[in-house]
């Protein structure tokens, strides 16, 4: 199977532009009528739906940011009544408030279509057995790949995350041919297989669909070696839809964007003006077909570039460069989005420490992201008993876990021993960047 949807994946630029134009005109109209927050943005600059006649008019439209989603928490960004929504997903927001998205049944089906296309790009078809080790739940990873794999007709194993030994047994016994998870978890699985002394000949794995966190070329090669597979990059974000917004075909430049569903732009993050092809900037998406919660010109904060050159795989869908960083200070820890501001708000509520003084150290140990938060113990609560000091430490760890959804190791340090923060560079030390 070469393409899942040959018509849309290989259509000419003119046909694509015509399709995108018609869909943009439609979504702008639906947003103006159904999403008061976006209508207000258009009214503020005197823009009417009729002013948008095609994709060439897209830069007349106001941007949408995560702040808009936060201000309208939880359901204020929906463009349809709640009764039309059949599923919600959510991811971390900057201040501990979740970013919530709502999907109609058709949205879920469109997303499955994109994920199915992605699986075919990685070489899957209905004969594959797809082992999904992304988390199932509010996070879009698990259900996104799950629906895509089912739509393709592959045998789908909803393993979800955790319990690596059991995962390996399932992958081996069921003869999984494709593995979908975060790159760091793929490394963990690979290492565990080595530790268990199993031979790759006992496995039928051929390909991996990995995403939801940044990873390097070196890590990709290492995963391919450890698991004896070809690794493919998948991209998605819950605001736009989950995994399957873009996918690598295995070619040498980036990921194909499902641009008949999601219109990509790259803008200069300072001037917000478009930049030329193959130039780095902030990735912006407009959902062209979404019903429940369309977003117009949503600033992803991801840094990427676009390439409209022809690809050797035959697809005409433009490509986006693998995301190389962020324009904000969001961290991705084991696939979970973490904002330093969330950490700060947890710390501010703990009276035993000097909440404004902290340092975040992110690293990758044994291929798993680790996060350490150093906090200053307030002198007034210091005790000569280990038990009492440990109890404070453990309580902070517990609160962090509850608020961030991912574990952090808390280290207590002496007051005034942390550098005074003058910006994010001082507060966050990300050692993964150098690996």
């Amino acid at each position, binding site marked *: 199977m070469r393409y899942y949807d040959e018509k849309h994946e290989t259509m000419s630029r003119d046909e694509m532009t015509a399709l995108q134009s018609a869909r943009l005109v439609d979504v702008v109209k639906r947003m103006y009528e159904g999403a008061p927050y976006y209508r207000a943005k258009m009214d503020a600059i005197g823009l009417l739906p009729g002013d948008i006649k095609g994709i060439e008019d897209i830069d007349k439209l106001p941007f949408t940011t995560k702040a808009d989603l936060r201000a309208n928490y939880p359901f204020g960004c929906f463009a349809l009544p709640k009764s039309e929504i059949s599923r919600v997903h959510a991811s971390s927001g900057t201040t501990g408030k979740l970013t919530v998205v709502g999907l109609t049944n058709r949205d879920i089906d469109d997303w499955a279509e994109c994920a199915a296309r992605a699986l075919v790009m990685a070489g899957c078809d209905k004969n594959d057995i797809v082992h999904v080790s992304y988390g199932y739940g509010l996070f879009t990873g698990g259900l996104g790949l799950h629906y895509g794999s089912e739509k393709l007709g592959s045998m789908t194993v909803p393993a979800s995350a955790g319990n690596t030994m059991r995962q390996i047994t399932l992958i081996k016994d069921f003869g999984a041919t494709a593995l979908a998870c975060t790159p760091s978890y793929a490394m963990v699985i690979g290492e565990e297989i080595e530790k268990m002394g199993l031979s790759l000949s006992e496995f039928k794995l051929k390909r991996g669909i990995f995403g939801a966190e940044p990873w390097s070329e070196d890590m990709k090669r290492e995963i391919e070696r450890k698991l004896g597979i070809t690794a493919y990059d998948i991209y998605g974000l819950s605001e736009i839809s989950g995994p399957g917004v873009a996918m690598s075909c295995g070619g040498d430049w980036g990921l194909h964007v499902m641009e008949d569903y999601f219109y990509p732009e790259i803008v200069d993050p300072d001037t917000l003006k478009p930049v030329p092809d193959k130039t780095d900037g902030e990735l912006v998406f407009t959902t062209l077909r979404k019903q429940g919660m369309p977003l117009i010109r949503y600033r992803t904060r991801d840094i990427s570039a676009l390439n409209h050159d022809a690809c050797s795989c035959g697809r005409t869908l433009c490509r986006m460069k693998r995301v190389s960083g962020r324009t904000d200070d969001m961290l991705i820890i084991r696939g979970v989005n973490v904002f330093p501001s969330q950490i700060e708000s947890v710390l501010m509520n703990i009276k035993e420490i000097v909440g404004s003084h902290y340092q975040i150290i992110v690293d990758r140990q044994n291929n798993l992201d680790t996060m350490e938060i150093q906090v200053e*113990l307030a*002198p007034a609560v*210091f*005790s*000569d*008993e*280990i*038990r009492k*000091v*440990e109890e404070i*430490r453990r309580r902070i760890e517990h609160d962090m876990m509850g608020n961030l959804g991912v574990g952090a190791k808390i*280290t*207590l*340090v*002496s*007051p*005034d*021993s942390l550098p005074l923060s003058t910006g994010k560079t001082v507060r966050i030390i990300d050692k993964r960047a150098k690996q």
Partner: protein
Amino acid sequence: MLVNQIAVFLENRKGRLFSMLNALSEAGINVESLNIADTRDFGIVRIITDDNAGAKKALAEAGFTAADTDLVAIEVDDVPGSLTATLGKLSKEGINLEYVYSYSRAGGKALILFKTDDAAEAEKLLR
């Protein structure tokens, strides 16, 4: 009797114990007893000095977090069973021990130091 002890918070970093002791020696303070309780990430150093007030001041100036507390100290004979008898008395009265360590003063008997939840009560019992 009661003995005043200073506890100092030390993060698990190279050179921290050295800088702590250095701050004391520069202030001309003699450390008579030193005991370290440690976890994976941090330690608590418990010291008794010839000038605890001066020691606290010197440590604060050097940026250390320190707190003082009273411990119950008893002299025990250097024969089998002498500590057992003492602990028996505390246990019978339901007094909990947080930690215990020994401390020997020059030319004399061993001193056993107890941190209990009620120092005054324990001290009365053992008098």
